[in-house]
């Protein structure tokens, strides 16, 4: 399958936020005489309807893309890449906000058991880290910026061997899987500067 098609499908079929009026429609339909079973539902909440992720998703959707260098992985590798795209768009709150390489390395070791071994000097600006639970797998996520572009590095224990060499969008070394994603559509390789200051 073409890398560009996978990238475009992830972009064009991205999740969207449901309109706020959906609850009222459901509520009225549920109490309508024609409803198969009447369910008593509470009225709309007012302020709580304002959902920050909506704006974040819409904003990121304009430029979200991922680093498909020459990867053609299957199974778990592809899932990790998919997750990287979703995390890039999700704009979820960071568990730790820090620009310190040492702090991020320490936190990742402590929280996930993985050592991302991020170098002290790099061409990126670290913003923080968090942990994601996906299908029972604990995934460490390092978030950073390269100029105006956002990027994430995912680190997880490899659940099955993959033939993915370093230098691709997802790879595996010593039983640990990695995946990179960036919002840069023009130069996705900028995300590699997290570990490689000279490309």
């Amino acid at each position, binding site marked *: 399958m073409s890398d560009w098609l996978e990238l475009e499908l992830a972009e064009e079929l991205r999740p969207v936020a449901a309109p706020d009026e959906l609850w009222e*429609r*459901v509520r009225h339909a549920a109490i309508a005489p024609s409803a198969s079973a009447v369910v008593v539902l509470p009225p709309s909440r007012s302020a709580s309807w304002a959902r920050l992720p909506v704006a974040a998703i819409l904003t990121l959707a304009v430029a979200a893309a991922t680093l498909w260098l020459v990867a053609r992985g299957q199974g778990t590798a592809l899932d990790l890449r998919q997750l990287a795209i979703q995390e890039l768009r999700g704009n979820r709150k960071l568990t730790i906000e820090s620009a310190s390489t040492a702090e991020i390395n320490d936190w990742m070791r402590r929280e996930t058991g993985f050592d991302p071994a991020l170098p002290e000097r790099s061409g990126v600006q670290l913003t923080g880290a968090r942990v994601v639970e996906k299908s029972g797998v604990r995934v460490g996520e390092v978030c950073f910026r390269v100029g105006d572009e956002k990027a994430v590095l995912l680190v997880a224990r490899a659940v099955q061997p993959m033939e993915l060499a370093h230098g691709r969008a997802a790879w595996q070394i010593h039983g640990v899987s990695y995946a990179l994603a960036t919002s840069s559509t023009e130069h996705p390789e900028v995300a590699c500067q997290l570990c490689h200051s000279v490309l």
Partner: protein
Amino acid sequence: MIVLERSERELVSACQRGESEAFRELFETFRDKVYSIALRYSGDRAVAMDISQDIFVKLFSSIRDFRGDSSFETWVYRLVVNSCLDHRRKHWRLVPMAAEVLGSLRTSGDSLAEMLRSEFSAGIRAAVDRLAPDLRIAVILRYTEGLSYAEIADVLGCSPGTVASRLNRAHKALERRLSHLVGKEGQHV
């Protein structure tokens, strides 16, 4: 994986007891997932709202039938997929590519690149819309929800191999239909 404010078991039990606030919490948890799948499947916001409304009414009225044989999330996905597949399209999109391009032309200040991007995006959505329902729903579960082959198989009640086959057929069909819009290296023409 969805993280519910209270445990999934507690929330479902509360809904099964008819607690109205629990229904609301469940709605908040799944609203974007349900609507996203309905929108990507139908390609039409109004139809997606109709489908989403039907799904939640069905979900609320049949939640007592949930026995816990699968995860609740999988049970909801199955409900969504069945509703999408059952839904007859009320509104076909009229010449979607042309409509999208004309829409972008009306916006002042748009660059040629933006217009071409708009056409390309519309082309992809139109190509997905033309996929057979079983292929389309597999593509949407994969790219909208990010489900693995095994998770899609669980939702659709088929084997992971069947999922792989459907996605492969969908990819080939999409590449064929979109080939006129891309160059050899995947660049937009």
